[in-house]
């Protein structure tokens, strides 16, 4: 029986590149998938596209492709390797053109196809209600993007059209991995149990290193070998969707029941109903069996019919966040930092900075989970952040922290300040029929 080998080359946009190259070269793969879109990445990419109509795709696309394309396509003595990625972000068509340009430059003859149809901005009506209670209309000109989470459909079209490289925009993460399993094994679009199992494989692989020993080590409790050379994962899958998760021999990291269990539950709510555009997957009875060093078999996933509506991620501008930080150390550091915090908050009030919300905390004491620390650290860092409607107001927050140098308590050092625009994300649901995934050459 045929075994399909799918590797995971990225778990987020800025991820390491050499583990992907290692997989492409030594993973004996049929497919290499790069998942690079977080919740608001498309909204940010859409802004980039507004300033450059040819832009709006992943900033690392060119570098990644330059490194892995030499292993892609039909090559003597190797499996045919194909690439699937959502690095098209807000502009899959331009991204595909860029990949074609790189292929030609490298002397490669590859078919590169873009999947479009996720951009549904023009379909939104002012009365549509977002999950945060606002209407689309209330966002006015602050609305910047609306992208439906597509399922496997467009990728299936591209693979059936014999693409070597498939570039998408917003696609549900597991769908990037499910589509090649459906194509290679001929699974029907309503074969829910197999789609559920294939979705489990996608879910385990979609964050790359997070299943192979990344984001796992806790020295003395959970140790991981050679974390600096962490290998990215691959799955060996059979025609029923049964799979073994493993990694390239000799790479760093580890694949174990524990690493797989952490990733199984990651970003899952009800494990019996993991919703994707393709299937309602059931992970509630999954179990893992260690079959050898860094080899774990995933069993027991199921599936039911897919949701009738697709989730749409809506990006909009929501003001600015201004921030300032200052460190205090040595005896009395906490008391001086607390005084500095009080002074800054008072100053923001006195000079009338217009803020929607403000937060002031001491890094090292209470910045993550409130006041829980029972010991006084040697050093702490004051952090003040505020959200303002206007950029000019947000700037004043960091400035006021900086003035602690000559006006605040003794011994403050290492001031920093920043201002960033808030690109917020909300969601709504659209009927599946309203969305039309398709390929563009």
């Amino acid at each position, binding site marked *: 029986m045929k075994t399909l080998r799918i590797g995971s080359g990225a778990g987020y946009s800025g991820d390491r590149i050499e583990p992907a190259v290692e997989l492409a070269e030594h993973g004996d793969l049929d497919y290499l998938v790069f998942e690079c879109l977080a919740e608001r990445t498309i909204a940010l990419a859409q802004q980039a596209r507004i300033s450059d109509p040819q832009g709006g795709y992943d900033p690392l696309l060119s570098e990644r492709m330059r490194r892995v394309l030499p292993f892609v396509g039909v090559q003597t003595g190797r499996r045919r390797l194909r690439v699937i990625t959502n690095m098209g972000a807000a502009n899959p068509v331009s991204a595909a053109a860029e990949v074609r340009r790189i292929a030609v430059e490298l002397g490669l003859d590859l078919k590169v196809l873009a999947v479009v149809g996720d951009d549904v901005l023009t379909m939104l009506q002012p009365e549509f209600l977002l999950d945060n209670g606002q209407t689309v209309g209330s966002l006015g000109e602050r609305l910047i993007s609306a992208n439906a989470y597509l399922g496997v459909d467009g990728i299936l079209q591209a693979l059936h059209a014999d693409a070597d490289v498939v570039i998408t925009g917003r696609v549900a993460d597991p769908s990037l991995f499910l589509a090649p399993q459906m194509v290679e094994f001929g699974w029907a679009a309503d074969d829910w149990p197999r789609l559920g199992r294939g979705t489990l494989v996608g879910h385990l692989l979609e964050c790359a290193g997070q299943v192979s020993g990344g984001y796992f080590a806790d020295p003395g409790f959970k140790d991981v070998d050679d974390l600096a050379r962490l290998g990215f994962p691959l799955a060996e899958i059979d025609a029923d969707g049964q799979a073994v998760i493993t990694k390239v021999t000799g790479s760093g990291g580890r694949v174990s029941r524990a690493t797989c269990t952490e990733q199984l*539950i990651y970003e899952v709510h009800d494990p019996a109903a993991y919703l994707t555009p393709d299937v309602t997957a059931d992970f509630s009875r999954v179990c893992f069996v260690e079959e050898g060093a860094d080899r774990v078999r995933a069993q027991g996933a199921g599936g039911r019919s897919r949701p009738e509506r697709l989730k749409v991620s809506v990006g909009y501008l929501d003001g600015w966040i201004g921030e300032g930080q200052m460190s205090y150390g040595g005896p009395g550091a906490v008391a001086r930092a607390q005084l500095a915090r009080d002074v800054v908050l008072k100053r923001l009030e006195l000079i009338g900075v217009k803020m929607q919300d403000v937060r002031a905390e001491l890094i090292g004491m209470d910045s993550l989970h409130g006041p829980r620390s029972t010991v006084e650290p040697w050093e702490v860092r004051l*952090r003040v952040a505020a959200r303002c409607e206007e950029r000019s107001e947000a700037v004043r927050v960091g400035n006021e922290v900086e003035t602690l140098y000559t006006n605040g308590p003794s011994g403050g050092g290492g001031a920093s300040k920043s201002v960033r625009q808030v690109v917020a994300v909300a969601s709504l649901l659209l009927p599946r029929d309203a969305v039309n995934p398709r390929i563009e050459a």
Partner: protein
Amino acid sequence: MKLHTLAHSRTGDKGDTSNISIIAYRAEDYPWLCEQLTVERVAGFFADLLEPGAAPVRRYELANVQALNFVLPGILRGGVTRSLALDAHGKCLGSALLDIDLPIMN
């Protein structure tokens, strides 16, 4: 005894909701962890951070992998994109929960 000695954890985020897995190192500890780590206990641990009026904390059991999954709506206060928090994703919440004190097992 700290939960840290018996279980490990990972935190995920969707919108302004966190989910925290608690996974027993040893299968034999799992029933006892299920007994101890009630929704009330976990909600109480994060009482200062949970948003008043948000939907209640939920718990799911994954017995085949000896794990619990806690879902905490509203704890990210506006979500990753709008939050003023240093750790806007709430990535560190699971590690915090491992500090929970448990009675010594018989």
